[in-house]
């Protein structure tokens, strides 16, 4: 759900703006088309990760998007998993290069 690139970008923008963002700003931040943004927001709204409200700003209709408490929680869980994956990958590369160096030393 969150790992999809556009949705990850959306949630990352929304966690940095806990009071929410208008549809237009979100579209610019994530560089998505109206249709794509609507589609991804719908998926996130169905999963209750974001809430969408409609209102008016300067007498013009405006759609407002806000991350939910559950959305923040899920996003943080995702970050923790992502961090662990990156740390494991770094450790694996380090061990591999260490092993290569040791075998090269043994050969000499």
């Amino acid at each position, binding site marked *: 759900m969150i790992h999809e690139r556009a949705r990850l970008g959306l949630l*990352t923008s929304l*966690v*940095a*703006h*806990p*009071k929410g963002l208008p549809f237009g700003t979100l579209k610019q931040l994530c560089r998505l088309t109206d249709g794509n943004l609507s589609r991804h927001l719908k998926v996130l709204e169905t999963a209750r990760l974001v809430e969408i409200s409609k209102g008016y700003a300067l007498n013009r209709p405006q759609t407002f998007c806000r*991350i939910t*408490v559950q959305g*923040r*929680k899920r996003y*943080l*869980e995702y*970050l*923790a998993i*992502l*961090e662990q994956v*990156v*740390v494991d*990958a*770094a450790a694996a*590369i*380090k061990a591999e290069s260490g092993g290569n160096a040791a075998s090269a030393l043994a050969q000499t």
Partner: protein
Amino acid sequence: MENLHRALAEIDAIRGQMARTTEFRGYGPATLAATGVLAVLAAVVQAHWLKIPSRDIGTYLAIWIATAALSVMIIGIGTIRRTRRVHFGLAKAMIYSAGEQFLPPIVAGLLLTIVLVRYAPQSLWMLPGLWQVIFSLGVFSSCQFLPRPMFAVGVWYLVAGLTCLALGGGERAFSPWAMGVPFGVGQLLVAAFLRYGETDDPT
């Protein structure tokens, strides 16, 4: 490898950004109330054992510095434990952020005390008032991450500190209640606001 380090740095940056926009719930009301009670107890101890504090500034400072150190320790341990529980995934960033807000005033208060004791002992009467003013600055700088009514606590410490300074020197300056009342009431106010001022949504 460089890419992985960059990815980890970006994850840290996202957490830091989230921490800066999240209401801090790491301060426990009971812990803060305990430090208020501790301040009143210190005042009682001073009133009982130190009849003329201006003649024994060393003991006066020892009582209040020990009280402050114990309070910082209690709040520190309580905050770390509570933050780990309440701010899942953000604990480290939140603790770092809270420390950033409150450590500078504590260090400034400590250095000010050392400087006044060593180089301007004639101005020592100002210490209780200055401690409260410095503490109020710490509260004000933390306000953006705490429930809104916390601003009133900053005002309380500022007014109390300025009142201590305005009332002047002599025996009054070192009265146990010049410290016990501001910090006792102030910390109990913090505890009350934390207890009743929390919103459901931590953002």
